[in-house]
């Protein structure tokens, strides 16, 4: 039973208590840049989470073989390999999302969440714990991006599930003039700041 709790702890810590966006403020570049539409936020989160889980797994497996002195270059090469694979897969099977995320797909390589987890967690812990950690932090990143992009899409575009007209739902009718500010990076800062404040209030209230 105790071992189960360890995995559960590894899993949930990344989602709530150490949420990479709202609590650790890591990986801000993609967070602020791509969260214009929910679809983009979710896609970015999913891509980063996939890389994180795979790299956590491999780095944990190799932790005894990789010498201390060259660990960082090894981690970066491993992460970059997964990112490039994700990039090619997206380009082949999800071209619309690939176009929407643009340069932020290759930039997952330098997403500090991933290298951070590799360095702080996966390189020192056994495989299954690292896997649980990767899944947890990955889910935490996805959740944060989806929340942020929902707020930004509603305020900045007046839609949900855009930009694809087939799925987009216009919340306020055709005459709604969206707050274009929230579609831009400056609006992302504002939205993120407000959300962080909200998260802090909630956490304080429930003593998390």
């Amino acid at each position, binding site marked *: 039973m105790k071992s189960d709790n360890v995995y559960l702890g590894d899993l949930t810590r990344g989602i709530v208590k150490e949420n990479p966006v709202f609590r650790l403020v890591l990986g801000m570049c993609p967070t602020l840049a791509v969260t214009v539409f929910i679809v983009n936020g979710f896609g970015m989160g999913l891509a980063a989470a996939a890389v994180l889980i795979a790299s956590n797994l491999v780095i944990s497996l190799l932790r005894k073989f990789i010498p201390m002195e060259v660990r960082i270059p090894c981690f970066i*090469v491993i992460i970059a390999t997964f990112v490039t694979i994700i990039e090619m897969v997206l380009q082949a099977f999800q*071209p619309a999302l690939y176009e929407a995320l643009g340069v932020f797909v290759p930039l997952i390589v330098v997403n500090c969440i991933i290298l951070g987890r590799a360095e702080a967690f996966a390189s020192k812990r056994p495989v299954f714990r690292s896997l649980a950690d990767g899944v947890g932090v990955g889910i935490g990143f996805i959740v944060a991006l989806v929340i942020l992009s929902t707020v930004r899409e509603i305020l900045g575009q007046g839609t949900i599930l855009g930009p694809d007209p087939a799925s987009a739902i216009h919340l306020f009718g055709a005459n709604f003039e969206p707050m274009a500010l929230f579609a831009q990076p400056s609006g992302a800062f504002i939205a993120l700041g407000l959300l962080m404040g909200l998260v802090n209030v909630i956490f304080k209230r429930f003593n998390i």
Partner: protein
Amino acid sequence: MRNILRLSLTLVVVGIVSAALLTGMYNLTTPIIAERKEAEYRESLQCCFPDFDTFETVELEEDKFDLLYDQDGDLVGIMATAVQQGYDGDITYNLAFDGEGKIIDIIIISHSETPGVGEVITTDDFQEQFIGKSYEDPLTTGEDVDTVSGATISTSSMIGSIRRVTGVAAESFLGVESEEIDIATVPDGVYSGSAPGAGGPISVEVEVSGGEIIRIDVLDQNETPTYYIESYPLIPEQIIADQNLDVDTKTGATLSAEGIINAVRDALSGALEDGS
């Protein structure tokens, strides 16, 4: 020493495994990506040219033209791909012409104009005013098309670029000749003419003496200063030196340069019409 060997060996192994993985993945996905792009492009052509069968690609300077033929080998349309400097970076777009050179569709492929402002170039409201127009129309701000206030730079650069591409397509593929003017037949005198540049009409005064252009003055213009400086006085000087309107335009200021050339042409053809 042994340590260094171990370190480099680890790096080499990690690198080799990574390279092998990537090579495999690349070989798997490349054909899919290429196929998808081709299919996507054919589909995008289908919207404007339902009865095309084959296409041939011609690249002219910075523009790409796909000439579309039906099963009998007749030209059914032209799909142009052009890049234009907008307010904030390049705008890449497709311009679809039918077999007679009429614009049937404008498709913005990528742009980085300001959301909610310069972004209007992607809207039907802005694009519709071009549909059905051809090289025979002026395609000029204030005459048959309008810029959108608040987004003047984005929209006027699109108008200028569409005018230019329409002209190039007509001259290159539809056998439309731009009127050649024999300067030697122009009677002596001072003539004025005007033509659209990038930012509005450019008006010039041309002095002809003894069958030669001896002076070109730009009287009025509203070009972007940095571009304008590149075209003026270079273009008038070159026209006078060559005694020919077929001078090289400078990349980056093509619209201004062509505006000046067309204004001179306008002045001279006006002179010929008055004389005859």
